[in-house]
């Protein structure tokens, strides 16, 4: 469903990613792992259009989305979350998720300013859908809270709810378990499972090996900007190159 072909990203002489090719299967949960500085977040930034990549191609189904800016990817159903959660801190939890429905509505400045009937109908649907996704992620009771004052774990859930509101085909999660305690991590694993059941493909960068091995169907291992290995969790666990890299012998 999502295919990477020869992705190379150079920053002023530093090769952050070199010739990475990989395919994400529709409906799967894919983990991207690797030591610090392996290029995992860079890979996400390339796919989600935050960096202009040096060379290579990104395909969604068979259509190229190479170099698409994030606002162009959103309507195609590609969305992401951030390692250091990026919430709209001064808006309420509900409003945050309503922004996630931006692409699901079309009213322009004039329709909004004059409260034309179509806009009012849209607004009602947006509100309902937003509440649905808050309930889906289990933070429905926080709808009226200002997002900036949420505890970290809830903020993470809000970011996921906001991304889901887009009704994406594929969601990229950058270290969703970072900073969560073990109970929150278990809940997250359950949530990710339900996201997959909703028919959404999940790709996640994660350091929590237990979580990755537990929930992922496929794993991509990066090391120093190159693809080190790919396969099922079992294959990866037994791969000597991966073990060497993680023990620091690579």
């Amino acid at each position, binding site marked *: 469903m999502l295919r990477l072909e020869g992705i190379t990203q*150079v920053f*002023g002489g530093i090769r952050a990613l070199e010739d990475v090719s990989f395919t994400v299967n529709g409906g799967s949960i894919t983990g991207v792992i690797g030591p610090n500085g392996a290029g995992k977040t860079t890979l996400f*930034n390339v796919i989600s259009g935050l*960096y202009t990549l040096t060379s290579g191609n990104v395909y969604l189904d068979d259509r190229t989305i190479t170099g698409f800016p994030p606002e162009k990817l959103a309507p195609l159903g590609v969305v992401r979350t951030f390692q250091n959660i990026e919430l709209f801190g001064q808006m309420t939890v509900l409003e945050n998720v309503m922004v996630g429905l931006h692409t699901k509505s079309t009213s322009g400045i004039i329709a909004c300013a004059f409260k034309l009937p179509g806009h009012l109908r849209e607004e009602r649907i947006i509100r309902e859908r937003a509440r649905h996704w808050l309930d889906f992620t289990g933070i429905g009771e926080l709808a009226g809270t200002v997002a900036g004052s949420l505890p970290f774990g809830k903020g993470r859930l809000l970011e996921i709810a906001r991304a889901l509101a887009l009704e994406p085909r594929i969601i990229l999660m950058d270290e969703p378990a970072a900073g969560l305690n073990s109970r929150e991590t278990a809940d997250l694993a359950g949530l990710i499972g339900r996201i997959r059941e909703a028919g959404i493909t999940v790709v996640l960068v994660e350091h929590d090996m237990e979580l990755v091995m537990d929930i992922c169907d496929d794993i991509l291992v990066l090391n120093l900007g190159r693809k080190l290995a790919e396969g099922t969790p079992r294959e990866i666990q037994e791969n000597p190159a991966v073990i060497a890299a993680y023990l620091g012998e690579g």
Partner: protein
Amino acid sequence: MELHQQILQYLLSGFSTGAIYALIGFGFAIIYNATTIINFAQGEFVMLGGMLSYFFLSVVHLPLPAAVVLAVLATTAVGIAFERLAIRPLKNATPLSLVIITIGGSILIRGLTMLIWGKDTHALPSFSGSEPIDIGGATILPQNLWIFGITIVIIVVNKLFFNYSITGKAMRACATNRRAASLVGIDVRRMVLFSFVISSAMGSMAGIIIAPLTMTAYDVGIMLGLKGFCAAIIGGLSSGFGTVLGGLLLGVLESLGAGLISSGYKDAIAFVILLLILFIRPQGLFKKADSERV
């Protein structure tokens, strides 16, 4: 006067105002590099230099050298006060509030100056006579020579300071990476204070040496400040040679534009250049673009 003589004349006067713009531009660059703040009050330091030396010279009746020294010291004191009272207390300020606060500071300084010394325009006598000197058919005033001389001295001292003194090197370290600098034991807050000291002193000096040519008043800081900023932007906000070139380029273009096109639109030239540079090459004319990591 023939055309080539005319052009020589424009070049000479352009270089002279350009040198002033460069000095003011340095002030912007030094504070920016230490704090990533564009100090909108920079032009007011320039104005204070001119106004204070007028005050010490004509009202207090001190000799010129003493008046100049006192004016620089007093302006520096204002710079320190501004940093201490308005910049340092801010923590985690957004760029928007920094813009607003330095603008607030600038109109406060301007307003207070107007209340104390009025709205009149004042002249400062030339440092040494006003006999024009003939250079290849064009003329130049002794004050222009003072401007060139003092600017060169300041630039050289500045270069030596940033390249060879411990404090100067520490300030450069802060400019490159604040966190790393503070980790190796550099007192970043002191460096920020220093940057205000240096740029207010430099700005006031610029205001003093140009005052005999253009006169001074409470409101000259806006234009001079903006043009200094323009010079700094052309130079890519470095406190190096780029800003000098930026200042000279701006000075010459302005003087040619005023002479050959229209003197009324002279001030607009700087801003058109400013906008063009910001639109097309925001990293400055003399810098390579960095491939920025988000």
